[in-house]
């Protein structure tokens, strides 16, 4: 239970001991932390929403020449890109310094099903190698799978005007009815694909 305690000694050896010493955090910690980030952004005068950055990035890349949707004052949104940079740094700090290396302990039922579809490391790794390991680069089916999934994420979040952070967390916590409809859509789309499409697609990877 004391795995995360920072050593008081300042010697290099002791410092190395605190690397990779944290167990995964439970939802009781992560949920309130996310709410804290959302609340802090509001108090600073900003708004918590990740998918709007996709529009900003397209606008910066020159998409404003093709659609009025991208004619925007992206400089007013640049703070949100700084937030994204922070999240990338956070992912690196957590994985390469804090988190104890090890698998994500998923429900054995989930692991068995995924293994039957050909995801051999379900239950024994953090992310499936077939999609996120170096071997994915030489697997056209895996790359196409990630590309199509990404297109759906980008297209869908912009159509719905928000994603998990904007609708499920910011919107629902502010009693926004449209967000409830959007979240119902998230669940519907996810259930359709996870139950009807992935069982056919994943064995092809």
């Amino acid at each position, binding site marked *: 239970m004391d795995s995360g305690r920072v050593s008081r000694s300042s010697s290099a050896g002791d410092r190395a001991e605190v690397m990779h010493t944290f167990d995964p955090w439970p939802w009781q910690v992560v949920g309130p932390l996310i709410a804290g980030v959302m609340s802090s952004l509001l108090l600073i005068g900003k708004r918590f929403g990740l998918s709007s950055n996709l529009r900003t990035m397209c606008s910066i890349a020159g998409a404003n020449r093709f659609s009025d949707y991208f004619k925007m004052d992206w400089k007013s949104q640049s703070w949100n890109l700084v937030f994204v940079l922070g999240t990338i740094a956070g992912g690196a700090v957590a994985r390469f310094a804090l988190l104890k290396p090890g698998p994500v302990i998923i429900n054995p039922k989930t692991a068995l099903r995924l293994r039957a579809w050909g995801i051999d490391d379900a239950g024994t790794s953090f992310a499936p190698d077939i999609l996120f390991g170096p071997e994915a680069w030489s697997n056209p089916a895996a790359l196409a799978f990630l*590309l199509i999934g990404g*297109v759906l994420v980008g297209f*869908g979040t912009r159509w719905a005007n*928000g994603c998990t952070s904007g609708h499920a967390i910011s919107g629902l916590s502010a009693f926004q009815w449209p967000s409830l409809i959007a979240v119902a859509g998230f*669940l519907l789309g996810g259930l359709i*694909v996870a139950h009807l499409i992935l069982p056919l697609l994943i064995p092809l990877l």
Partner: protein
Amino acid sequence: MLRIFLLGLVFGIALTMGEIISWFRIQEMFYFESFHMFGVIGGAMAVGMLFNLAARRFKWGTESGAPLDIHQYTTGWKRYIYGGTVFGMGWAVTGACPGPLFITLGAGYWPILVAIFGALLGTFLYGLLMKHLPH
């Protein structure tokens, strides 16, 4: 800007330490085989709700004195159900919503770059087609 960066840092650390960026957790979620993801999203929502109620009750504003910038979504339902469903489909495929899309990159799983490129492409396609879509 430093504070914004640090808030992003906390968010990235929290979602990685909570394994929210793991593709496996999303597969588990859509089969209702674990409470973890529902706990994270529901917990964030519940605590956020307390914040919003307190902010209303005590008339909290931003540090510069302006009202909080709480998004007032336009009424209607089509864009939310259709767009939400399309996003949910992509979420089940990539195992990443837009936040984890970038956090996964930071965590060093480079093939996620393909999904990020896809998300930008999807955003661009939406910009081209939006006039023809129900909203």
